[in-house]
Every structure is written in structure tokens, then in C-alpha cells.
């Protein structure tokens, strides 16, 4: 059912849209435009004028090995955390869908992590994963030196991936469970009558039918892993050790606000924006083809 309001004069419609348009302009297009402008100029660290430098900012960033390291770290982080968060959520949702008693409770409990601010949960994980006192201290007791995110870049990367995935498992779970429950029961029963076992049914019937949700979550998770990771990195590793977890979004912050390189940070944020746009276009072009919309 479509409910559509029509206005006799288009000006009334525009007037209704103005508040929202103002918000979007003020908080999205204006800063974005400003970032583009800054990225093409050299800003004074303490204010007071700038010099037009064209694409020089981009050239210097792309010539910097640290920046390429940051891109690699971001892609690794995005790939693994998205995969982990989606896979765990998918398994949990599939199991919950089969055994429905109490699924309401899971739905509530599992959305909570998503509601926790990233720095808060990062602080919690910092304690949980602390090599000297936390849960991992037990592992270190058995294999001394096995776990030290303060020294080992891979361990640090693993820490922020775990924290980020933990937050997004709940979010993904809600969507997956809703998608599973939207599949008519009789389809599963028909497949059971056709001789299909649990795993086969999941592969042949349920999985194809939730591909729209998988696709949606893939886009959201990848986008968020580039952006929502800031708080986690800041609290848990501050980009270290040795830039191992210096993700693009964190490098923008540290270069811009700590290094006072506004123009370089602006250029980096433009590159990050373009990267997310390209990834999203790529997903729509090549992955959406495999999605079955009902």
C-alpha cells in the first residue's frame, strides 16, 4: 500500500523539506565541501590564510609508505571484522531460528552491544584482553609471551577486530534472525519433505532467501568498519604498536588534530570517502547480482 500526500503547489512541498535539507547541508555537504577545499590548499596550523596547492596534498600522501600501510591495515581490519561479525551472527541466528523458545530475549540481549559506545566497549576489551591481568593472562601463563598487543602488531590488530566484531555481531544477528523468520515455515517443511536435511536446507533454501539481508549487512559492516572503528582504536591501541593498527580513520585524526596537518588530513578523508564509495559501488555491481529479491 502506498500512501502519498500531494500538494497543490510545489512550494509547500519544498517548504516541508527545508528543515531536513538544511540539516543535511549543514552537517554533511558543507563539511564535505570544506574538506575538499582544504585538501586542495595548504592550511596554516594556527589559522590565518592558506595557499592553493592543487593536488600536491594527495601526491605527498600517496607517496608516503605510512599511508599505504594504513590503507592495508584498514582493508585487513574491514575484511576480517566484517567476515567474523557476519559469520558469527549468521550461525547464531540460524540456530536461534531453529529453536524459537526465548528468541525474543536473545533479540533484546544481543542488540545491547550495538548500543554501547565504541570507546566504552573498547575500554572493557582493553581490560579483558590485557596480557598481564585479563583473560589472556591465563593463556600467557601457559605459553609465556603468546599474547601481547602492546608489542605484537598482529595481536593488537586481533584485539580491535574482536572488539569491533563483538559490537556488530548483535546488530547483524537482529537482521539475520528477522530474515530467517520471514521465510515461510512451509518452505522449510516442503524441503524436508523433498528429502533435504538441515544443512542442505540451509544451503539451498534459507541462505539464498536471506541474500538481500546478507548484502545489506555486507555494505553496512564494511562501511562502518572504516568509520566506526575510531573509538576502539583510540582507546585500545592508539594506532600502535608501530602503526600496526593505524587505520585510515585514526590516521586522519592523529595527522589532523595531533600533527596539525589539516590539509593532509582533509586529503586523507577525501580518499577514505572515495574508497568507501568505490567499495560500495563494487558491491552493488558485482555482489548484488547474486542476490535473490523476492
Amino acid at each position, binding site marked *: 500500500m502506498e500512501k502519498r500526500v500531494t500538494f497543490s503547489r510545489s512550494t509547500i512541498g519544498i517548504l516541508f523539506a527545508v528543515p531536513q535539507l538544511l540539516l543535511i547541508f549543514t552537517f554533511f555537504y558543507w563539511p564535505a565541501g570544506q574538506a575538499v577545499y582544504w585538501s586542495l590548499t595548504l592550511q596554516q596550523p594556527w589559522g590565518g590564510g592558506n595557499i592553493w596547492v592543487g593536488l600536491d596534498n594527495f601526491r605527498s600522501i600517496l607517496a608516503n609508505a605510512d599511508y599505504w600501510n594504513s590503507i592495508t591495515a584498514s582493508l585487513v581490519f574491514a575484511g576480517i571484522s566484517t567476515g567474523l561479525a557476519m559469520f558469527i551472527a549468521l550461525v547464531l541466528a540460524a540456530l536461534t531460528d531453529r529453536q524459537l523458545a526465548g528468541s525474543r530475549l536473545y533479540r533484546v540481549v544481543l542488540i545491547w552491544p550495538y548500543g554501547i559506545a565504541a570507546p566504552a566497549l573498547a575500554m572493557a576489551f582493553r581490560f579483558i584482553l590485557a596480557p598481564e591481568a585479563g583473560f589472556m593472562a591465563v593463556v600467557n601463563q601457559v605459553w609465556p609471551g603468546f599474547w601481547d598487543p602492546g608489542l605484537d602488531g598482529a595481536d593488537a590488530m586481533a584485539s580491535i577486530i574482536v572488539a569491533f566484531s563483538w559490537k556488530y555481531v548483535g546488530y547483524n544477528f537482529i537482521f539475520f534472525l528477522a530474515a530467517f523468520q520471514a521465510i*515461510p515455515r*512451509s*518452505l522449510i*517443511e*516442503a*524441503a524436508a*519433505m523433498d528429502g*533435504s536435511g538441515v544443512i542442505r536446507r540451509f544451503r539451498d*533454501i534459507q541462505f539464498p532467501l536471506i541474500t538481500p539481508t546478507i548484502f545489506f549487512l555486507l555494505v553496512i559492516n564494511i562501511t562502518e568498519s572504516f568509520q566506526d572503528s575510531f573509538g576502539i582504536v583510540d582507546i585500545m591501541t592508539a594506532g600502535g604498536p608501530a602503526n600496526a593498527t593505524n587505520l585510515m580513520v585514526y590516521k586522519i585524526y592523529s595527522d589532523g588534530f595531533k600533527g596539525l596537518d589539516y590539509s593532509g588530513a582533509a586529503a586523507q578523508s577525501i580518499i577514505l570517502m572515495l574508497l568507501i564509495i568505490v567499495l560500495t559501488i563494487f558491491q552493488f555491481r558485482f555482489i548484488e547480482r547474486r542476490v*535473490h529479491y523476492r
Partner: protein
Amino acid sequence: MASIAIRGVKKNYAKTQVVHGVDLDFASGEFVVILGPSGCGKSTLLRMIAGLEEISDGTIAIDNTVVNKLEPRERGCAMVFQNYALYPHMSVAQNIGYSLKVAGVPAAERTQRIQAVARVLELEHLLDRKPMALSGGQRQRVAMGRAMIREPKVFLFDEPLSNLDAKLRVQMRSEIRKLHRRLNATSVFVTHDQVEAMTLADRLVVMNAGRVEQVGTPGEIYTRPASRFVATFVGAPAMNILEGTVELDGLSLLGGSRHLTIARAGLPVGSKVAMGVRPEAVRLVAPGTAGALNATVDLVEELGAGRVIYVDLDGAPFSVMTSEAVHPEPGSTVGLKLSPDDMHFFSPETGSRLDVFKASIPEPAL
């Protein structure tokens, strides 16, 4: 082909019991229809045969093998669902062939068998389409094809025609009947539609509130309903029921306001009965005719071939179906002639049938 034996089957959901001990035997190759109002447990019973619901108590055996603990796929049943349950992301051919694919039948043989089934169901030109692009009747046929291709021992139908329009329903009904004659697999068909039930069934099972009310051929069910429930549920319009008391020379009806003289009343004098007579068994006569009941016309429903006349018998509703060209005006008075041969008697308490004309010696008590 397979026989089905159902012994003392019960079904509980948490604390509520929905099927209260059902015993039934279906012969090999028989077309059995389970008829009942919604919520009577008929679909639950079917789903227990299919293996989609656990059996709380009792046993179900297919071909003398108890299947209680078997998975649906191990029972050799195929099922056609009410909402068709076609896989929306698969083409018609894939839908029909899915069970073969699961069973690991080679692609070449699969294609050949899909073609064969599609030919029977006239689906050949639709094999590449998705279910979305099919009409209701076509979807129904695909659902049938999916069941047929497995060459099952038992066909289960769960109200498969209830989503179709009236014309298509009649057409699909005869197709199902033809298909059964051709495949000769034991079929169990669940419906709440009595016309569907009467036309399809070799044998009819009437269920109510989790119990079997009567099992018999459609003819038996119609002519000798075993209970008041069966009598009023089967037949349209429903059988008229008038409560009364047996007297020496007949029946006193409606709290004594009407008297019906019946020569052969075989029930103990003074016993309370519920007398039933089908609307199509009542004859309209001139008001005041000897032995007839006078009634006021409420409403006349024109059916084309005949009409249903709803009358008022001292406040009790009563209907008459006639194919004669009579058109009484609402408010006018008509006479109703009831023949003793067409009367059914039921116990007002239990609703079970009282056989009055068979018993040579009147029973001492009810």
C-alpha cells in the same frame, strides 16, 4: 502404493490436547478425504503422517512400518501445501526437480523426469519461469509436480485448493481425481470444503474437535450421518434440526407448539430427541394440508436451478430447498411436508444417531 494405519494417535501442544486419540485405516491406493471445520485437528493429523509434527501418543504405520521416529524424507510421503510453498528463488524446473537433486539423481535423468511430469501437468512452456511469474493455478500445478516426481507411496494434500478461485478449484479438483486414477498412490486430502470432500473421496473421514466423528463413503455420510455434527456439517444448506419429544402417535416439536404425526416412531414414548431433516427432503405444500407444518416465509434465495426458502417455525429457523418453480412471497404462509423416511434422529445430549426404524424392539432406555 501403501496402506496407512493410525492407532490411538494424540497430539498435545504444551498443555492443550488438539487430537484426542484417532484410529484410522487407509487402504492401499485409496483416496481418503479428511473433512472438518478449522481447528478440528485434521491438518495436525496430516502433518503427523508427513512427519512434520511429532506424535504425542499412539502410532502411525505406513506399509506396516511404524514411522513415528522417522524423518519426513524416510517416510515416502509427498505433500502439497495450502500456500504451495514453492521455492521462490528457483525456476519451475528446479522446484519440481529439487527432490531428485537432493537424492543425487544424475542431471540427464533429472531433466528427463522433469519433462515427463511437466508434460502431464501441462507446464512444459513454464519450466524456466520463477514462481512469482505464475498464476495461482499454475503454482498449484507446480506444487503437484513437485510431489509427483518423487513417485511417492503416499500423497498428502493440505487444503491445496483453498487459495484458488471457484472456477479453478473445480478444474483442479477433477485434475487431482484424474491424477489419482493414473498414479493410484494412496492419497490423504484435508479440506474444510464439503463439496471438495464429497467429490474427491473414496472414503470420507469427518473430524470435529480432535476426534473422528464418522468414517464412510460420501454417500453413507450424507444419507446416514452418525452424529448431529456430521448431519449439520455435511450438506448445504445445513440439515434442519428440531428438538422434540416422542409421543404415542408421533413427535411433539418446539416445546409442544407443533405436533407431527409419524406412523412408525420407534423410540420410547417421552424420550427427548433432536429430529433432523435435510432442506432438500422437505416438500412445499399448500398451507393447512393434513400432516403438514405451517410456517412463515422469511427469505427466498434464488440459486438458478432451484431456490432455498428460509421459513420461521414459531421462532425456529428452518430451510427448504426446492427445484420446483414456486416463488412464495416473504411473509406468506407455506405448508411443509416431512416424510418419516427422510428423518434422522439424534440424542439431544450426546448428539449421536438414534436408529429408530431398524430396531424391531424399542430399546428400554436411551
